[in-house]
């Protein structure tokens, strides 16, 4: 199981703040997970359509599409940061 947390327009588009997912075992990278997540609902598909417009974190550290992801990880998906 992987916990997904969403922020800003990603949260609004998917329609929830977080969810627990159980992707197939061959989803080993962040890119694999995003591809699989796209198929979960029209909202997921719309928001995740262009991963280059998104930013990711695994277990609270910034991550890229090549980053490996494991059982028990917390995956955060969000737009580029606009703090300060």
């Amino acid at each position, binding site marked *: 199981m992987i916990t997904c*947390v969403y*922020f*800003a*327009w990603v949260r609004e588009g998917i329609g929830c703040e977080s969810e627990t997912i159980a992707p197939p075992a061959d989803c080993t990278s962040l890119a694999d997970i995003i591809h699989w997540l796209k198929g979960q609902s029209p909202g997921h598909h719309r928001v995740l359509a262009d991963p280059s417009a998104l930013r990711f*974190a695994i277990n*609270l*550290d*910034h991550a890229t599409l090549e980053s490996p992801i494991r059982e028990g990880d917390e995956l*955060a998906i*969000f*737009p*580029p*940061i*606009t*703090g*300060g």
Partner: protein
Amino acid sequence: MAPSIVRLQSEAFNIADELSALRTACRSSPEKDGEKSSGIGALLSFTGLVRDLDHGTPLKSLYLEHYPAMTERQIKAIANDAITRFSLAGCTIIHRHGRLLPDDEIVLVITAARHRKAAFAAADFIMDWLKTKAPFWKKEDLGQEQHWVAQKDSDLEAARSWETPVHQPNKPRSEQ
């Protein structure tokens, strides 16, 4: 490591209180080894405010969303990085979240150093990093419409300019 005070909060902060809190923390830092003086020659504070206009349209309010555990961790890392790079005696970073109104104070950065240039450069560095590394997202309420603010290329470039290992106190200042 010199002291860093990092807080995420919805309520307002008091700048004078935070200036004295950091001075006290610097004075009682274990590195001072019992000395009475803090060794600080420069104490600088930067306050970011909510602007009242978005490209000419009056702003009703600003909503700041964050990712509590990650935001705190990233800001602590930014504070420690600034302390190391600029040999600071200490620094404070307080960032607000939730709903804010025009003119509200949104972020406070205080840097304490032996000399002025390091304090200025470190505050500039911290602000540039906060804008691209600390997970915050701003949503503007303009009355007729609400929209999530897009990341600015100028903010990304400003943050990238610090990626050279050499510390450059005289680099051009980025737009706040």
